[in-house]
């Protein structure tokens, strides 16, 4: 146990803080505090330019091994990186799906050819990724994937047809990693393949989904005989579920720390508003803010405990990780309610027409999605009970 940062780590902090201060200005000044969840539709081009600026400074993929272009930062340094990134108000990363999900999956399960082909573009911030898991009939029942992949011997390619949905950043992405059924007679998690598919081709169509915020971050993606090179299946046909589940572990990894710093920024904004409009004098509001503060600290300590477990290899990561999604999503949804109660009657009024929400109003609406995507609260509780506690599985029909 050592809950502090070393001198070397503090030096690292000075370095990243200074770099951000020097670079988050000029053309990038307007990106401060923009492009996070609920705001991802804002400034996509500028944010990709920012991604490339980060790459020039060596600040993408900081936790990746050096052989793949990463910085091989320790867990502590990654924590510091995400803290300083959020503290500076640096924008939501358009490259986060590549850096946090696609890249680590390719590193863990991909071929040397795939590593050579895809990792440099992620590190350089030149190639963006999206995730093709959910389908209209495969939400909570994720294994109920209907998208098909058949190998065309003549063309030497995989041919992919089907529909994906709730795909973040699909319209900005160069590649999609997706799961599709390689064995047409299979059901559930058997007979799936994990594919790396180029988005810019005739067989791929992206349609934005308008959300209750009036903006679009999620999309529907239609694959109609889309092509995928024979070399772009990760693992063997039939391994898709194993690869996809391996990836979910990365999703709960170190990137959660950046998310928590964003939560801290939002909570800071709620506190500032409460001071400004007098809500801070209300003892009920004060208690709720104090509770939110305490719970956010719990999340941070546990994330660090979880990650240090990972680095120390005591094997405790998995069960702790099961709890995290339920906890943060529920916390964030409550923060939205708290923010509106702090705003009081003014929470009904939008800053501008047509339907332009303030940051806190957008947050209040967007957090409704947090308890749904990436496994609903109900699915999370089932996972905690069944995998964490070892309770009997719920009857789930015949599919």
């Amino acid at each position: 146990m050592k809950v502090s940062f070393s001198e070397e780590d503090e030096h690292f902090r000075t370095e990243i803080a200074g770099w951000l201060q020097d670079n988050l200005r000029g053309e990038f000044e307007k990106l401060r505090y923009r492009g996070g969840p609920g705001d991802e539709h804002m400034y996509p081009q500028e944010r990709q330019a920012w991604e490339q600026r980060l790459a020039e400074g060596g600040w993408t993929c900081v936790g990746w091994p050096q052989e793949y272009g990463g910085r091989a930062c320790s867990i502590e340094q990654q924590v510091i990186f995400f803290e300083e990134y959020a503290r500076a108000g640096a924008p939501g990363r358009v490259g986060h799906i590549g850096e946090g999900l696609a890249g680590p999956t390719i590193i863990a399960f991909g071929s040397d050819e795939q590593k050579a082909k895809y990792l440099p573009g992620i590190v350089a911030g030149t190639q963006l990724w999206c995730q093709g898991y959910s389908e209209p009939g495969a939400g909570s029942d994720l294994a109920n994937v209907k998208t098909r992949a058949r190998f065309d011997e003549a063309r030497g390619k995989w041919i992919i047809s089907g529909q994906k949905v709730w795909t973040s950043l699909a319209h900005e992405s160069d590649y999609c990693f997706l799961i599709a059924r390689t064995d047409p007679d299979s059901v559930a998690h058997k007979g799936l393949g994990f594919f790396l598919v180029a988005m810019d081709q005739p067989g791929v169509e992206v349609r934005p989904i308008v959300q209750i915020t009036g903006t679009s971050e999620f999309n529907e993606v239609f694959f109609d005989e889309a092509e995928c090179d024979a070399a772009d299946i990760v693992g063997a046909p039939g391994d898709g579920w194993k690869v996809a589940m391996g990836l979910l572990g990365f999703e709960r990894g170190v990137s959660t720390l950046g998310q928590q710093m964003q939560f801290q920024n939002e909570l800071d904004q709620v506190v500032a508003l409460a001071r400004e409009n007098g809500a801070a004098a209300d003892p009920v509001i004060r208690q709720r803010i104090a509770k939110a503060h305490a719970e956010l600290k719990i999340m941070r300590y546990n994330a660090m405990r979880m990650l240090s477990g990972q680095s120390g290899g005591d094997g405790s990561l998995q069960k702790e990780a099961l709890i995290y999604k339920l906890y943060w999503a529920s916390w964030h949804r409550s923060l939205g309610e708290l923010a509106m109660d702090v705003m009081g009657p003014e929470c009904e009024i939008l800053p501008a027409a047509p339907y332009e929400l303030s940051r806190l109003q957008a947050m209040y609406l967007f957090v409704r999605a947090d308890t749904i995507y990436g496994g609903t609260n109900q699915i999370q509780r089932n996972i905690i009970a069944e995998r964490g506690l070892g309770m009997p599985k719920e009857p789930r029909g015949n599919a």
Partner: protein
Amino acid sequence: MDFTFTEDQLLFQESVRDFLRNEVTPERIRASWESDSGREDALWAQLAELGLTGMTVPESSGGLGMSALDFVLLAQECGYVALPEPLVHTALVAVPALCDIGGELAEQWLPRVAAGEAKVVVGLEQNMLVEDAHVADLLLLQRGAALLAATPDQVSLRHNESVDPSRKLYAVDIDAAAAPVVEGEQAQRIVARALDHGALGSAAQALGLAQRMVDMSVQYTAERQQFGVPIGSFQAVKHHMANIAVRLEYARAPVHRAAYAIAHERANAALAVSHAKLAACEAANLAAKNCIQVHGAMGYTWEVDLHIFMKKAWALANTWGDAGYHKARVGERIFADGAVLGAGATF
């Protein structure tokens, strides 16, 4: 003791329910978002023809002479369809305020309201903005300790966008020409009653909104299949709906009790109204939260109608006094010197 409604009240509710559910569809509401005023003269004329704009107008002025208690079930139905037209505002706020003011102003405007020829809106400082000022023929506006009556040519309006695209809100500036119609204690009394009437109308609509979200979600969870079965068969989903049902059923009695207190001008009407608004808006907010959850990601889309009702519930919870205001009112009453709260003080 009788908490039931009369046969006539229930029959009227049924016919209004049928009319509203047939006419005020989500498609029509979405169409109204695209129009300039967001309001439809033809629909208002139909509501007038049904006697609804004159429900609470005295018979001597061409209305039906009904009370808040008679109207409360209809306000629930207005909530159920998320009616954009200012019917609840007219029947529960504007008409009672006009009656309270009385005299020439009431004589002049009440028959026109009953006939659907004129709209009257009330703007209280508690609400900051005035609903439907853009379609009003007469505005009754609180300014400090006075109540003013202004016609559209005497005011300038600034539109404010609401989180609920159906709500039309305006900041109203009054030109010097508009003179106070009531001042002092009488004005304060009218303003206080208008606030209670508005809060009651919001509470009743919240009940309807919650019921609508529940009905939509019960249907959706019976249709949507995952793991080879309807998701509504899972306990985790059922419990979400059951939790709303408990909160919603237990919010009905306070709302009806508040309508009774207002209709009979009971001394504790304000307390009953605060209780009703808190209970009903809490139920509607819980319904919104849980119904989005059981709709999964679909509940988060603009395309699915749920957000029409969710956003109205959100807006109504914060108008005519937000939760903090009404909780404070209940608290003051409980801690008042000599407060009688026990046996004999139920009503």
